[in-house]
């Protein structure tokens, strides 16, 4: 009886394991192999050991891409979480047409990245762009968002937050709706203010969901290719190039698959390390 049971879950996992083996596991091993060679897309090239990795450590572009990836992740997680939570709180109350609004707030996430990028680029591209027209109305000077290192980063952050918050909102809203009403009634009886009940009832109840959401969002942001690529292409002057864009550039433009694979493997290691640290913390608490 027991022996049979042990095999059965494996059977349920089989389709998934097959897919993961083909699409993730095998390429991971092959990718590591590439990172130890100096090849192109059409040829494998000669073995160079860890040279690609040491070259990366000394490359200032790499450190900049790493820094930008981290800042990008932090900015997006914080921004999307706050915005998502705010709107979820708003939506948690009784509002006519709530179903419609839920979808309306989902739009930024529903739209394909290329579509949202097109709209945003148009909004900020030059002196006559709508955002600058708005600034003019307020008496300020136009900002050339895509020409300035700092502002281009801001635009990338803004677009990413814009695209990410709906998912946060959706999950937090579900979380909010799962909170037992009696908890609120109890604190109300004790004379707590709305802010206090938010702090001491709502937030603790949302804790688990929030942690998971933030971890997921961090992973997704560090691995994000489309947003920075489609808005700025990594510019100006590589200001918005994250690790994935750097890997792309080395593989598909410079044709140096070895270094490109090394960059992506390093990204994977970093994420794994991050996840391990976070999970250990979570288990402890």
């Amino acid at each position, binding site marked *: 009886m027991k022996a049979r049971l042990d095999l059965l879950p494996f059977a349920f996992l089989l389709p998934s394991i097959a897919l993961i083996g083909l699409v993730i596991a095998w390429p991971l091993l092959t990718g590591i192999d590439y990172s130890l060679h100096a090849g*192109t*897309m*059409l*040829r494998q090239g000669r073995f160079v050991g860890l040279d690609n990795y040491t070259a990366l450590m000394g490359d200032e572009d790499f450190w900049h891409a790493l820094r930008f990836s981290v800042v990008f992740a932090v900015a997006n997680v914080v921004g999307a979480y706050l915005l998502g939570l705010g709107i979820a709180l708003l939506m948690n109350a009784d509002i006519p047409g709530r179903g419609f609004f839920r979808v309306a707030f989902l739009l930024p996430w529903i739209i394909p990245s290329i579509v949202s990028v097109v709209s945003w680029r148009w909004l900020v*591209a*030059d*002196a006559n762009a709508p955002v600058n027209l708005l600034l003019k109305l307020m008496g300020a000077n136009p900002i*050339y*968002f*895509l*020409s*300035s*290192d700092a502002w*281009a980063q801001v635009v990338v952050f803004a677009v990413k937050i814009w695209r990410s918050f709906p998912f946060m909102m959706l999950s937090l809203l579900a979380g909010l709706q799962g909170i037992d009403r009696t908890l609120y009634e109890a604190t109300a009886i004790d004379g707590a203010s709305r802010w206090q009940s938010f702090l001491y009832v709502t937030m603790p109840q949302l804790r688990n969901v929030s942690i998971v959401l933030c971890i997921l969002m961090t992973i997704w942001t560090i691995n994000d290719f489309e947003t920075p690529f489609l808005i*700025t*292409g*990594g*510019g*100006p*002057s*590589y200001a918005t190039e994250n690790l994935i864009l750097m890997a792309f*550039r080395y593989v*598909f*433009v*410079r*044709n140096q698959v070895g270094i490109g694979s090394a960059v992506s493997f390093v990204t994977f290691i970093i994420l794994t390390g991050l996840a391990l640290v976070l999970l250990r913390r979570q288990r402890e608490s």
Partner: protein
Amino acid sequence: MAIDIGLVARRGLIACALASMLAAAPARAQTVLNFWDMVWGPPEYSETAKKLVDRYNAENPKIQVKYRAVPWANWYQTYVTAIGAGTAPDLSTGAGYQPVQLYDQGAIHPIDDLVAELKASGELDDFLPGTVERLKYDGHYVSLPWAVDIRVWLYRKDLLAAAKIAPPTNWAELRAAAKALTAGDKYGVAASGDTGGSHYLYSLMVNNGGGLFDAKRTLTVQAPRNLEALEFLAGIVKDGSVSPASAGYDSAGRRRAFMLGQAAFILDGPGLPDSGTPEAREQIGVLPPLSGMHGDKGTVAWTNSIMVYEQTRHYAETKDFLKWWSRNQKPLWTEGHAGPMPARMSFHKDPYFKDSALRSFIVENYLPLGKTTGANAPGIFAALNALEGDGVMQSLTQEILQGKDVGPGLAKAEGKLKTIVQ
């Protein structure tokens, strides 16, 4: 698989890409060739090209050519994917250095025999001097020239006339004119921080007698002439004559600014005026080749060519079509309004070029001065492609347009270019 819609759209490049998929011709003892052609001009270009292919097919029932228009976006990925997947075309046109870069990867079939045949018949003399030789690499002719894409300084006649400024003839005059024409929301020079913008750097360096490589194909990024040229551009930026939005512009934005009359000067290909309304076209003129700091003249040019792929299984037929295409492709300009200039001098005699002040001027005065990014090195080589595509030069362009100092930027670029070119 290919949906033949039948209607040929007048507007939109996608329509042409679609329209370019011919319905499969009847099989039987026929050779089918796949010809991939980049989108070299406005919508009518791809339509005209397709009609031309239809003509060939009608005249040559034994060889049927399937035409496909390839968009420029991520073109390198398109070709490498096809080659890697074993689905490369028989022949294609492409970017300036594409044949050598793909040749290095074993994907291009040399056409020495075709060149020899053209030489024997005297037809080779029809090509602009140097263009055929430029495409010799590793001892072989890797492709046949068909057009020369060149960068020229265009200007708005209306803006200069209104300010009573004569068209500049040298760099100092250009800088002064640009400054004088900057007022309100109008700027002297339209620029961009993308690949099209990086062409400004190449053109100015070549104009000043510099270039990124020397005769031995060694990188000479920080040569004094190059530094001067870039300082000149930086000077124009510091004068305030370039819109601060430029670094973030793409070529579409830059061209739009010029075509709408928001900028007086632009460096672009000869086909730019054709993309505007007839009224706008009236207002666009071409400057004479400008004299650089030391009196040199020159500009950057790419010899666009037709290349044959190693994966072709019908080399003889491909050669036949290639020759026919090269001889009969004049309609690509007269009806298709292709952007670059023909490599064949006989085409220049057509009224399309002779009767147009702009085009005939470019043919006579700019074409002889065109040099590659590798300027002083004979022939092209693969590193040029990697160099142009990588983003280092685009990044440098962006920095200059942002007003950052040239010296450190150029030094940094040299460091990066060295790793690409190795």
